[in-house]
């Protein structure tokens, strides 16, 4: 267990030292700010689309760190060393997932408050956005780690990662954005999708890392 926590701490430290914490958030805010420029200064329209914009921006921002999540560790032998120490691939992937979520979600939720204010969403909508992100972001982090492991070592991994990850993230987007319109059951379905991704991703990512070793 202490080994697991050491790995989680390492993920956070690496994200921090490589600017992996701030960059996706800055990107998220930038994408969210693009929409008012594209749609024009119609505040009623902006307030109505705010939730969807924030969710779509969050999805795109989640793509940014994918390339540095697994590939560097496979390349420099870190995963090998962990396996020699008797750690299971799925455990390594789970630690990466937790570390990634801790570095990504709190800042994303903070930045969502800023984005919501810029787009003119009201307080009730903001609360629903934050609850949705709290439930959905673990799924987003899980998907990020799984995608990172699946695409590690490929040429042009960044572009391929987008093609792998975004379609799989559509359920999160549908139910996340749906929950803002207070669609019945959207939050529960969002939770279900997120849970499924969190439960499955360590095994998918672990298997991908195992195959990459062969």
């Amino acid at each position, binding site marked *: 267990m202490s080994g697991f926590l050491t790995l989680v701490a390492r993920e956070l430290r690496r994200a921090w030292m490589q600017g992996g914490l701030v960059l996706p958030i800055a990107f998220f805010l930038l994408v969210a700010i693009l929409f008012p420029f594209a749609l024009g200064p119609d505040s009623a329209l902006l307030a109505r689309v705010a939730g969807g914009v924030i969710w779509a921006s969050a999805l795109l921002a989640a793509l940014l760190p994918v390339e540095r999540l697994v590939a560097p560790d496979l390349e420099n032998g*870190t995963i090998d060393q962990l*396996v020699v120490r008797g750690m299971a691939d799925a455990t390594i992937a789970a630690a990466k997932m937790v570390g990634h979520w801790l570095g990504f979600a709190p800042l994303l939720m903070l930045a969502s408050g800023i984005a919501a204010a810029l787009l003119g969403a009201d307080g009730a909508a903001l609360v629903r956005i934050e609850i949705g992100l709290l439930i959905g972001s673990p799924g987003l982090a899980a998907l990020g780690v799984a995608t990172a492991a699946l695409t590690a070592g490929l040429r042009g991994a960044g572009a391929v990662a987008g093609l792998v990850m975004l379609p799989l993230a559509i359920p999160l987007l549908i139910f996340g954005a749906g929950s803002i319109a207070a669609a019945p059951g959207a939050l529960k379905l969002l939770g279900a999708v997120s849970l499924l991704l969190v439960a499955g991703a360590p095994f998918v990512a672990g298997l991908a890392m195992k195959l990459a070793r062969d």
Partner: protein
Amino acid sequence: MPGGALAFRDVTCVRGGRTLFAGLSFAVEKGGAALVRGANGAGKSSLIRIAAGLLKPYEGIVAYTPPRALITEDAALDPELPLARALRFWARLDDSERDRDAAVAAALDTFGLAELAEVPVRLLSTGQRRRAGLARVVAADALTWLLDEPANGLDSVSVEALERAIARHRKAGGAVVLATHLPLAVPRAQEILLGAG
């Protein structure tokens, strides 16, 4: 496995449809050493990776007494960290009973890296990084060392330091499996020649 450190029984290794070696059996006792030799592509690295549990043998059984420590061509040290901190990360995972800082400091000293303790890993030269990887193995306090081409890129002073470290490890009851194409003085080591038959 009582008594021994590592044993191969009828191990066959197949990579990419090619049989690299078949029916290989050997055992390394505590305090013993095995020197794996063979031409490029004969399967030296694969043998080390099988011994480390990173590759599954196509056939046969590998028995070992944990813990093992491995060095391959990758140093596996976080490039942005100062050398000593990068090594302490692994020492912490290894959960050795010894004092981590002292173990890391002693390992750094073994390979003449004490002055570089605060230098980020990414600024180290190839040879220095290689020595840092060896320091990680020394600091791990593992029973069996699995060394894949440990002398690559080392200067003669470092090669001697490596030979001394191996001798000290064996004296303390540790075992060493070593794949190399460079001449390394490892007394009383059994030789495993790959690709000869």
